[in-house]
């Protein structure tokens, strides 16, 4: 680990978000590196200064009372109370406000399932690179990678090596998306790592039972493609450009 690695891990270290292996590495490094040691101390001093100096605001009692009172008055679900008779104007405008609020709230609180999933996939990809934990089973041999998942998953992900076509299989990993274990197959194209996530279609995770054509997404600079077939859903993420990723998907589909 060099100083630039340490700089990347400094905040996670101060925040207690570093796994024990990396934590030990950071501790070991700062023992003999004055520069990183003082950087770590500065971060800790800043945290102390923030905790001591930045006020934590408490909700005023009047606000709490107002909210509790307005909840007591409310009768959900509002949408079913269609306004009839007198007072229609007021009731209707209240209903509109309520529905508008509901719609806004819905956008705020519950992004579309796809969006959530894409976010999770990009996070999983980034995490696998940051923690230097790309693979649990580093092997370019599909006859090693595929059986490794046996007993760890309730399905068998296809492991196809595309080294001859420029996409080398480098291993496999267990990952976790939307409350279920998924297979992550790791490929490399030049210096670019690809994470191919695979899980059974239907059930808890997005995607119905039917085969779905390839859909492409871009999120935080990463390119994603998702499709499903033969009962499995696939989603590949990498920092390749769109054309290169299309090529990968095409190769995979033709081999699968």
């Amino acid at each position, binding site marked *: 680990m060099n100083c630039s690695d340490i*700089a990347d891990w*400094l*905040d*996670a270290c101060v*925040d207690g*978000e570093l796994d024990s292996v990396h934590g030990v590495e950071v501790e070991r490094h700062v023992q003999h590196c004055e*520069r*990183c040691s*003082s*950087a*770590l101390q*500065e*971060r800790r001093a*800043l*945290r102390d*200064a*923030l*905790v*001591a*100096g*930045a*006020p*934590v*605001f*408490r*909700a*005023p009692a009047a*606000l*709490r009372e*107002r*909210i*509790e009172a*307005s*909840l*007591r008055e*409310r*009768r*959900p*679900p*509002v949408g079913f109370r269609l306004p009839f008779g007198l007072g229609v104007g007021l009731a209707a405008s209240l209903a509109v406000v*309520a529905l508008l*609020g*509901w719609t*806004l*709230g*819905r*956008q*705020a*609180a*519950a*992004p579309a399932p796809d969006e959530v999933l894409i*976010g999770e996939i*990009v*996070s999983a990809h*980034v*995490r696998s690179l*940051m923690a230097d934990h790309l693979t649990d089973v580093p092997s370019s041999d599909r006859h090693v990678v595929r059986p490794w998942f046996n007993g760890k998953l309730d399905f068998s992900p296809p492991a196809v090596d595309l080294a001859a076509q420029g996409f080398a299989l480098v291993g496999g990993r267990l990952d976790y998306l939307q409350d279920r274990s998924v297979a992550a197959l790791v490929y490399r194209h030049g210096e670019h790592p690809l994470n191919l996530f695979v899980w059974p279609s239907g059930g808890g995770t997005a995607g119905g039972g039917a085969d779905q054509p390839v859909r492409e997404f871009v*999120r*935080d600079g990463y390119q994603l493609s998702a499709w499903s077939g033969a009962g499995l859903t696939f989603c590949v993420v990498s920092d390749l450009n769109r054309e290169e990723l299309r090529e990968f998907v095409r190769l995979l589909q033709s081999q699968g």
Partner: protein
Amino acid sequence: MRDEDSTRSFERSVLPHLDAAYNLARWLTRDDAAAQDVVQESCLRAFQFQDGFRGDDGRAWLLAIVRNTCFTWMQQNRPGQTASFDEELHSPASELASPQAALQRSEDREAVRRAVEELPAEYREAIVLRELEGLSYKQIAAVAGIPIGTVMSRLARARSRLQQVLRPPAASPRTGVRT
């Protein structure tokens, strides 16, 4: 019956987090009246949409609604502050070398508070959720709707900035600060 049940379960899962909601809203809007409005509106939205709440983290759920309501409020009332923040353009050195910043270089509480208040909203949000509310990276990612990697880079940049503003004038050269 259902009404009473849902009101009660809402009161149990969400209302305990009113302080956290207000704290976040207050730091983001930097205004007491606005923060109260935002929190009240957010609670009503949360209540109307409570069927969409699954899982056990009522705090993260409420905070996500609060932060979205805050950013909407800021767009309407403080345009310019939420314009999508270009992290490359706003390198720490470019903005903070003002005489005003120099005056704030002290360790006292007021300086800390102002330094946090002057952070871009996205950075302020990350610092408040992490340092004052003690949320994990994963929870911050859920509240702000961003990947964990972005949480980490925002925290790192926010802290480097704060260190720069708060460092006493006599301090040694800029060791360990990533630029």
